[in-house]
């Protein structure tokens, strides 16, 4: 589904990704974890070319995402992306946020787009907030709207960059519950998170990055076992101490 081949990236002189080689299989959930500055967010932002790479190749369903005939906007509309800070459009209501991709990318009329957007809002449990402004809803609700917006174009892949990190603890649960449901529905998902319980429960593969290198790629049972890479065990012990 998504294949990273020798992917490297630099910010100026600083190398932030080092020859990453990995595959995300269709219909699976991959969780990325690692210490701050390890390159997790940068790696997932390369999937829809929000961050360009300087070396290597990324293929989505067998097609090089940097191929000359690839329209970057078409590529992006096929990849749902959820940000840590939600990034809802504050001048649009909740339902207008979800409708926007249908109106502007699918060129649907408002009459066509609104029922589809309402259906998506029902799926994330926020139909009753359709006419609210983003400023009027909670962080957890905002993130669920952001997920609804990212799913409205029925993307092949859903990519989430620390979707619960900006939330109050009591709101984390509602977002993780939704992500569990999406994972169970079989959507291909890549998620950067520090929620190790979620990773253990939902992930098919867990990737561990350190200093831009993918040091460990394993199933959850192996990841959380004593056989895991030393870096992973150190990381997990720090995470456990902090929780």
């Amino acid at each position, binding site marked *: 589904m998504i294949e990273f081949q020798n992917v490297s990236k630099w910010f100026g002189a600083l190398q932030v990704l080092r020859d990453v080689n990995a595959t995300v299989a269709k219909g699976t959930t991959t969780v990325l974890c690692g210490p701050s500055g390890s390159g997790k967010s940068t790696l997932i932002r390369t999937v*829809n070319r929000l961050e360009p790479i300087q070396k290597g190749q990324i293929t989505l369903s067998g097609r090089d995402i940097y191929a000359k005939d690839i329209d970057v906007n078409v590529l*992006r*509309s096929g990849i749902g992306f959820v940000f840590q800070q939600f990034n809802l459009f504050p001048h649009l209501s909740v339902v207008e946020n979800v409708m926007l991709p249908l109106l502007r*990318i699918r060129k649907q009329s408002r009459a066509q787009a609104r029922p589809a957007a309402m259906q998506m809002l029902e799926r994330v449990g926020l139909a009753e907030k359709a006419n609210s402004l983003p*400023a009027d809803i909670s962080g957890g609700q905002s993130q669920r709207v952001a997920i609804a*917006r*990212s799913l409205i174009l029925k993307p092949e892949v859903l990519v989430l960059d620390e979707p619960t990190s900006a939330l109050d603890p009591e709101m984390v649960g509602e977002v993780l519950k939704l992500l569990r449901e999406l994972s169970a529905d079989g959507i291909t998902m890549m998620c950067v998170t520090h929620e190790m319980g979620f990773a253990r429960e939902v992930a098919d593969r867990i990737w561990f990055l350190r200093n831009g290198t993918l040091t460990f790629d394993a199933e959850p049972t192996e990841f959380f076992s004593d056989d895991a890479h030393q870096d992973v065990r150190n990381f997990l012990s720090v995470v456990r101490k902090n929780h």
Partner: protein
Amino acid sequence: MLEIIQEYWLLLLIGEYPHGKLGGLAMTLIISFVSLIVTFPCAVLIALARTGKPGIVQSIANGFVHSVRAIPLLMLIFWAYFAVPMIIGFPIDAAFTLIVAIVIYQTAYLGEIIAAGITGLPKGQREAAAALGLGYIPTMFRIILPQAIFNVIPGIVNQLTTIIKESSLGSIIAVSELSYVMLQVNSNEVTKPLQIFGILAAVYFVLCFALSQATNWLERRISSRRTGQVVVEAVA
């Protein structure tokens, strides 16, 4: 002062209209609003160029803004009034000349205000639009500009008060706006300059003060809308 108002109030309001040209306060308002309406899209284009990708368009926009900000409006008016007819070979209406000069001048300033609104938005807004697959035009016109312009409405209204004041420079090239009319009144009533220019100052003050109050009201409305809170107006 009252007798001057009683005698000249119609001239002050509409100039010599309907027996002659429209003038006075009506002309000042027309020049100001037409200037703002024409300036606005020009300023949006300058702001987009200034905040867009570096290149020839941005360089031209930068050159325009820096040049215009370095010269006085009066010089621009003289240029438009005296030099342009010599270049194009036929005379131009003075009011039209004034509007063109104000538009050029204010495009640089209003463009900077809108550019500040664009750069002041969180980077995530543009990224979110890009991640959805929106191209440059829908991103700017549906996502970025509505928010940027909304946030700088007070600055835009403030520029309108500046334009109203700048329109008084039209009196130099015989545009029969408010200041020009009052200069004519002063010529008739030679001994009352204090009262005449007192009235002129009062009219400008009332106009601009009303606009600045409207700006304050708008600012309160905007902040309440953005924070999702209802502003409770004090009941006197």
